[in-house]
């Protein structure tokens, strides 16, 4: 039965991972704007522009 302790520790580590993911998403402002990225992804990159705008979804300032 002591295997359960191991399982619990693993599940807790997993859950902490999700918590960290949540905190990271708030920190990087992903919760700030839930609309613009959905429009942005539909813009075509034109040939004259090499720079890929979609890369810059997160403000990290």
């Amino acid at each position: 039965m002591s295997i359960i302790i191991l399982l619990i520790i693993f599940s807790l580590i997993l859950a902490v991972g999700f918590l960290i993911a949540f905190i990271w998403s708030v920190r990087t402002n992903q919760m700030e704007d839930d609309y613009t990225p959905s429009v942005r992804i539909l813009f075509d990159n034109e040939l004259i522009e090499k720079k890929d705008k979609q890369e810059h979804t997160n403000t990290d300032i």
Partner: protein
Amino acid sequence: MSIKKEPDVKELLSCYHCGNDCDNSPIHFDEKIFCCEGCSLVYDILKENNLCTYYNFNNSPGTSQKKSTYKEQFAYLDDEKIKNKLVRFTNGKITSITFYLPQIHCSSCIWLLENLNRINPAIIKSLVNFNRKEATLTYIEEKVSLRQLVEMLSMIGYEPSINLNDSEEKKNSGDKKTTAYKIGIAGFCFGNIMLFSFPEYFSSGSYTGDGFKGVFSYLNFALSLPVFFYCSSQFFVSAANSLKQKFLNIDVPIALGILVMFLRSSYEIISGTGAGYMDTMAGLVFFMLIGRAFQNKTYETISFERDYKSFFPISVMIKKNNNETSIPVSDLEIGNRIIIRNEELIPADSVLIKGDANIDYSFVTGESMPVLVWEGQLIYAGGKQLGTSLELEVVKNVSQSYLTQLWNSSEYKNKNEESSFRQLVNRISHYFTIALIAIALASLGWWVSQNDLAKGLNAFTAVLIIACPCALAISSPFTLGNILRSFGRNKFYLKNYSVVEKLAKVDSIVFDKTGTLTKTNSSQISFTGKILNPEEKKMVRSLVHHSSHPLSRMLDEKLNDVSAIKSENYYEIPGKGIQANVFEVPIKIGSAEFVGVKTTPDTSSVKIYVSFDSKIRGYFSINNEYRQGIEILVGKLKQSGYDLTVLSGDHDGEKNNLETIFGREVSTHFNQTPADKLRFIQALQAQNKNVLMIGDGLNDAGALKQSDVGITISDNINNFSPACDGILNASSFDSLPGILKISEASHRIILGSFAIALLYNIVGLFFAVSGTLSPIIAAILMPISAVTIISFTTGLSNWYAQRKL
């Protein structure tokens, strides 16, 4: 929020850039039609920079460029002090700044603003937040200045709206993040602690073995630490503040409950005597944080009443030794000569030195039509100049001026009112806390008298734990939040929570006639008499342009194809008419009596007579068009037993029409000046009536302010008037009876949820006092009571909203 789709090109002559009609002189450029130079200029810039994809996503995505700008408009952005206030981040080389661009309205805007580096390569990155209408630009400091950046944005039609408040908003978003962290962590801990508590609840110790029990208990203890020390800190701070003021607010029993729960559970876990109430504690904190977050969100959505500072300019041009320099408004001193240009706000009370002042005080008084001011007269802060530039001398500091005082005093008043529902909660919690401690001590005393100290302590702590008024704390934010949001869906916007409560108490309703019951629609105007030539039209408009009376506004709108010119000796008798000289010709516009016409009263329409040089020229007749559904509205209100009154600034020609709508028993008063209206409201209040005044916020600002609840009917909700408590969109006028009903219901819903919360507490107290409160009972009662309250208040208020609106 969805992207606003521009309608397909409806007419041939609509501007390629902004979609406006090119009525007078369309400009042909590059085989396209533009309404003005500004629009074609923007197109030219975009074309030059290969940005014409802008026009592919939507038809005519631009905004009209007719608004004039001037060269030095953004000179203040070169000032280091101002710049530092605005930028988000800078390391000397790379700078990042967020602009609020109110023009953002479609996907084309997003595309253009995110491709700004094609216009200016110094911009490294630009990112749009569509919902907040913000763009964050990162640029190389050496290659482009902030001023150039703003000038470029305004050149392509996205002039940033910059104000001093920006820096404070940043702090606000930090608070929001902290709340999100706290909810996340509390939710995480709550879920896990509950999971680890299940073995304890669902089995006797023998089955899982003692080793497990210890492990689970210590895991729970570890998980409860962040909840206690981080997530619940705000309750302790609030409780401490309230104790300092010698008052027991709702956070005192909450903080007490959390503290006792944590200490007793820690003791039980460490001494190995029990499992503790850690899951109850974490769940409680989690639910209460959600309640607070919900409350803050509602506050945010109803804050149409913004701080006066957000309307204030950030800098002002001052004139010194014939040089014009721009300084921050906060550095303004008494005696400074300031230059105010078209569309600029006056930052401090000043005396007019030079120029034609045409001041729009809509922000201060709600009067949206400009007022003429003569040289040497005082202009109050908050007025907006329309027309040519002015030279003023500052006579009061920014902080002492009339506007600031007005706002500060009303802000103070509002804060007191705002908390009236919370006051109820706090009043209840005050006695609740006292009763709670009494019960806890009594049960301790009783068990001690039975010589069972252990059980006594158990009961003492259990009472404090189970009675923690989580449900009580979340009931009013959820009820009022839901009600305000359902009002918002029906285009009714309130200043704050307390207005709901005051609406519930209303027993008499006063309507303003013109502009409220009737529509302001210039298409209903016709002129009888010898037709006016353009020159004469100009003269008429020059007069009506300066008056705030709804009829003048309608005429002004009707005559908007000619421009107003300078008038002299302007004089207005409120409710009668206006007179002035234009080109040395004395002109009178107004009622028959004012202009000097003897006629038999004709009730079919309102007539505005015009005379040039004392010779009567004819009259404009305006057919009163009542808003739709007024009869039904009046019928419903009468049925509910409200006292109705109609006040009108016009003559009694409409009396018959009004009587067919309102019935004979409703009193109607005609020829009322704004001051009369105010006195009428005061007289009603002297009879202990709670008055709801419904006006258009333009010429009855005083009455709106005096009434217990003043609601402005508006076709444009951005029409801001500090005098009113709420703004109702004209299209939702007929939902007024429903709004009043729901306001009444809100009180009952809150009291009902209090009753439910207390019921749960009594059940819990029964277990607690008898010393048999097991962790599982606490763990079941707490979430169930919270969920019941949330679903009760949300469900009931939404049900009412659906049925009544």
